[in-house]
């Protein structure tokens, strides 16, 4: 029998440590994200109701907060009806393919700084963002496969629309983020967040260097004016314009990428009776639904990480800090844990805000016509993203100290 101390030592062995901490992170993140998915559906229904002067689901539990559980039970208990004219293997495969990529994308997103010395990202890849793009574009296969395997006209049209939409938006999606990497100089998402901690969020990179909580608490006003005056310069203002453009193009592209309104052509209810998932019922349909909302969360996570500072918030230190607001009775380990948890909370708060924005846009903007969508993708955003890269490259070449 193992001694308790030997047992603990086993868990502290570097290789074992990395395995079990990663597994723990996977389980916790998956639990959080799946919970977030079901409550995003609830939020979608409530917010759309309020926007349309209705009340929405408010019967199950207080203010309808248990509605996602009721929905899950309903979907699980329903009969999974498979029409006998479908291509069975691909028909059953499609929901899985739609569900898996968004969850895989979450692996590279840093959802916190560190907790107990463990970096809060499942896979700290140096090619992080490439992984995210490569995997998330696989999601379209699920939709195309579902449309084709359903052997029915409406899903087929949905699948066709989805694939052509994906081709027109993937380009501007990829190109729009190139300025970010030109400025930051790395593809590692954790590094990008660290850059933003010191230089300001990429949506508005005015955050002055050397501005921190400690000196702010010591002498608030003077420190504030001093650092802002030194951080604000013409070059930075110049850099802000293309970065904001890149943010805008990226934002619109992820709407198209996740099939959200105003680009929800593959599942246009009014035209296609639900589009690619018309022939699905029960858990097959639920998996598409989960996949769609998980894709929204993954996209929001990437957006937050790239442009909105990830888990960072001005004046809030990361999980390596050893004092909590200078309070003497909080030991260093507790302080760093608290800051680590706050960082995670900040990340998910930002993600939730982006999700609410996506819901808000969905219930505001009418769907684009297909030719309008193609025109926007190929004539406007593709060129805009290309020009933007050249612009940023030029700014960086002429003002080397802008970073």
């Amino acid at each position: 029998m193992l001694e308790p101390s030997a047992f603990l030592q086993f868990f502290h062995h570097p290789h074992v440590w990395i395995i079990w901490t990663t597994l723990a992170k996977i389980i916790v993140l998956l639990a959080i994200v799946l919970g977030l998915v079901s409550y995003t559906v609830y939020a979608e229904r409530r917010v759309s109701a309020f926007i349309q002067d209705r009340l929405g689901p408010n019967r199950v539990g207080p203010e309808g907060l248990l509605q996602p559980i009721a929905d899950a039970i309903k979907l699980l208990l329903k009969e999974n009806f498979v029409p006998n004219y479908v291509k069975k293997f691909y028909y059953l495969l499609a929901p899985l393919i739609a569900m898996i990529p968004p969850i895989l994308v979450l692996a590279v997103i840093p959802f916190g700084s560190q907790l107990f010395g463990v970096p809060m990202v499942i896979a700290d890849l140096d090619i992080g963002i490439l992984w995210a793009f490569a995997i998330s574009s696989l999601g379209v296969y699920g939709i195309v496969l579902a449309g084709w395997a359903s052997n029915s006209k409406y899903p087929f049209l949905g699948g066709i629309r989805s694939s052509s939409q994906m081709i027109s938006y993937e380009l501007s999606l990829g190109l729009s983020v190139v300025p970010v990497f030109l400025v930051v100089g790395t593809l590692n998402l954790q590094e990008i967040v660290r850059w933003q901690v010191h230089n300001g969020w990429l949506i508005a990179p005015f955050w002055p260097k050397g501005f921190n909580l400690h000196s702010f608490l010591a002498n608030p006003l003077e420190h504030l004016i001093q650092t802002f005056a030194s951080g604000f310069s013409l070059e930075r203002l110049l850099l802000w314009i293309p970065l904001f453009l890149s943010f805008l193009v990226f934002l619109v592209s992820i709407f198209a990428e996740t099939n959200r309104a105003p680009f929800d052509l593959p599942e246009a209810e009014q035209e296609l009776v639900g589009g690619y998932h018309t022939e699905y019922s029960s858990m097959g349909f639920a998996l598409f639904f989960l996949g769609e909302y998980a894709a929204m969360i993954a996209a929001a996570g990437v957006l937050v990480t790239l442009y909105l500072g990830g888990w960072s918030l001005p004046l809030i230190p990361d999980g390596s800090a050893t004092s909590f607001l200078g309070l003497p009775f909080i030991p260093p380990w507790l302080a760093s844990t608290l800051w680590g948890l706050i960082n995670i909370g900040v990340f998910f708060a930002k993600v939730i805000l982006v999700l609410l924005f996506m819901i808000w846009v969905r219930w505001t903007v009418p769907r684009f016509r297909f030719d309008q969508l193609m025109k926007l993708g190929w004539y406007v955003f593709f060129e805009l993203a290309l020009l933007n890269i050249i612009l940023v490259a030029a700014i960086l070449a002429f003002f080397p100290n802008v970073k």
Partner: protein
Amino acid sequence: MAKVIQRPKLTLAEMLYLPAILGGLLITVRHFFDTLLGRKKVTMRYPEERWDNHLPDYYRGAPALVKDEHGRERCVACQLCEFICPPRAIRIIPEEIPSNDPWAKVEKRPKEFEINMIRCIYCGLCQEVCPEQAIFLKKDYSFVGYSRQDMIHNKEKLYELGGTMTGLVHKWNEKK
């Protein structure tokens, strides 16, 4: 001849989409907060809040039979309502009033009076045609039952719904 429709010339702001989208977002967020804070109210939380106190006087709910101020059932079983009823929801079996009854001079009364609420279309023709002002459309609108039989209102139920209605018809009263 083909008719050429001139597309309107868009201004730069319109071509950019963004000002229009921002305007739309402002409108929807205003609606969101109006409903969230209860400043504007459109829907009614039905089982808790009901229409009962908001119904207009002319509301046509379920038909019901009424008694007069002496407790006499007004219906004389003339069967006009049964004839006029478009969906044939009313069924009446008349009977003679026995001679020892104080209201024997009325001669006829319904032995059985049934309204099938599955059939009733709440048109109000029965109320309009009734020469005795014995049947009225009340404000009750919510009827449920476990079977079709439950949904047929018999005489007892109809008088329970109708209650007493005074005035209007005096011809059977004692001459003063």
